[in-house]
């Protein structure tokens, strides 16, 4: 082999050698990049935690500040729309609270995923870190931010509709499945956005439209006829239902499972092929 990579016997040395590709297959290198990234979990944890900390740096309320602003948003939207749609608050408020916070996590992961390599330019041009670190940082950052909002969910759900333990576990599983998808989204969209700089704003606009087409501020039950097809085919709705429905004591539909499973498999396969092909080009595009 024209270049060699040391085995990972010596756990103590993370970067035992930086090895450069020539004749190794791109697939092998892409796989190794991702594997190597997972060995840098401590760095990923640090980077994402640092990102979160910067948001509440030295503000009086500190970490609470993020939570309070979301709580105010949910409270006011809940009262206004509950009144407008003439809905029972005990149904509407839990639906809205879970929907908004989970949507915020989706949107942050996808939007920031587009920027994962662009934002890390200063790193990528100085050290040869595995590229997989950066999408993982974005996903973890969104999860940490979401964890702040869990306080609100606990309060709202405790008051209106306490979920079962099984429901909570199922919902956590839904979040985990989303996180697995967040990784390929960051990898793929981050790579494409590094090359095509107008992709990130385009994705942002699409997400804004998707927000209104997804049952976050409205209920699934209020939609009928042809519009319902839209709901059934909306991938965001499928992901949301996997997280939200168990918390609100419904079962997510089989269709949601199938859509999510399909997206997970197709997304990862497509991303892996793209990543294998263009991994080495990312630093050239920054």
């Amino acid at each position: 082999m024209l270049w060699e990579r040391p085995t990972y016997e010596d756990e103590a040395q993370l970067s035992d050698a930086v090895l450069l590709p020539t004749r190794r297959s791109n697939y092998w290198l892409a796989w190794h990049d991702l594997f190597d990234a997972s060995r840098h979990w401590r760095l990923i944890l640090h980077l994402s935690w640092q990102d979160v900390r910067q948001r509440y740096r030295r503000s009086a309320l500190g970490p609470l500040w993020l939570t309070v602003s979301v709580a105010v948003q949910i409270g006011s939207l809940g009262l206004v729309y509950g009144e407008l749609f003439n809905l029972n608050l005990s149904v509407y408020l839990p639906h809205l609270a879970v929907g908004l916070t989970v949507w915020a996590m989706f949107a942050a992961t996808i939007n920031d995923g587009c920027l994962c390599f662009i934002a890390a330019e200063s790193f990528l041009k100085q050290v040869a870190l595995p590229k997989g670190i950066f999408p993982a940082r974005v996903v973890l950052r969104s999860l940490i931010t979401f964890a702040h909002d869990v306080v609100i969910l606990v309060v709202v759900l405790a008051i209106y509709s306490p979920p079962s333990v099984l429901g909570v576990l199922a919902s956590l599983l839904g979040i985990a499945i989303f996180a697995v998808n967040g990784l390929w989204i960051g990898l793929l969209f981050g790579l494409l956005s590094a090359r095509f700089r107008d992709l990130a704003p385009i994705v942002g606009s699409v997400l804004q439209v998707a927000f209104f087409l997804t049952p976050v501020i409205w209920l699934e039950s209020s939609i009928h006829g042809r519009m319902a097809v839209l709901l059934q085919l909306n991938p965001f709705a499928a992901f949301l239902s996997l997280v939200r429905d168990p918390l609100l004591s419904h079962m997510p539909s089989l269709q949601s499972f199938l859509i999510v499973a399909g997206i997970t498999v197709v997304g990862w396969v497509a991303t892996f092929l793209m990543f294998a092909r263009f991994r080495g080009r990312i630093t050239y595009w920054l």
Partner: protein
Amino acid sequence: MRIDLQNVDIDFPIYDARTRSLKHRVLGLGPPRVGPAGHHRVLVRALRGITMTLTDGDRLGLVGRNGAGKTTLLRVMTGIYEPVAGRLQVSGRVASLTNITMGMDMEGTGYENIVIRGLMLGLTRRQSLERVEDIENFTELGEYLNLPLRTYSAGMLVRLAFAISTSINPEILIMDEMIGAGDKAFAEKATKRLERMMASANILVVASHSSETLRRLCNKAALLRQGELIAMGPVGEILRRYESEN
């Protein structure tokens, strides 16, 4: 330890607003193209057919004017730019001392940053912790290490960054210009520390505009011009040639 480059080419694609745009790519919108070869990307050849082999004991100085490809070549050896063509083999633990404050967390304390920077330099947490005492002694920051970096003066920050970056023992050390730290009194101590680190590396590659520095540190030199390796050999000979050309 070994660095081996065979006919390495590095091309940088140059994109303008239009080729950067997915919208233009997909929809073909925008004003009609002026000039030839609409779909050809503009490429800048940063390195052309570089062939060199470095082994244990080599201390290579890179010389050449601005834009000759010195930094790019260092980045290729570090693993940042993967060659477009040719082959490259690097075996050994590589460290590049270019931006020594990279990744430092202004909100974190000095001690936290020792671990954070260590992670980026490829150390484990435990290895970083083992180096704390050495860094404490060298920086003389004392209690300041318990405070967030934003409270540091510029000089203190550089001292800490320098101490951390030079606490590792890479087998292959890559540097773009010499790094230094602090006021005059400290600079001497810093130079000593850096030179000890360089001496312990099996292979050293350093780009510099200072002939004096290169003569002192290196035994070999390579002259680059417009991305091509013009000459490589004993440091004195190459530097004489470089100086006579300028």
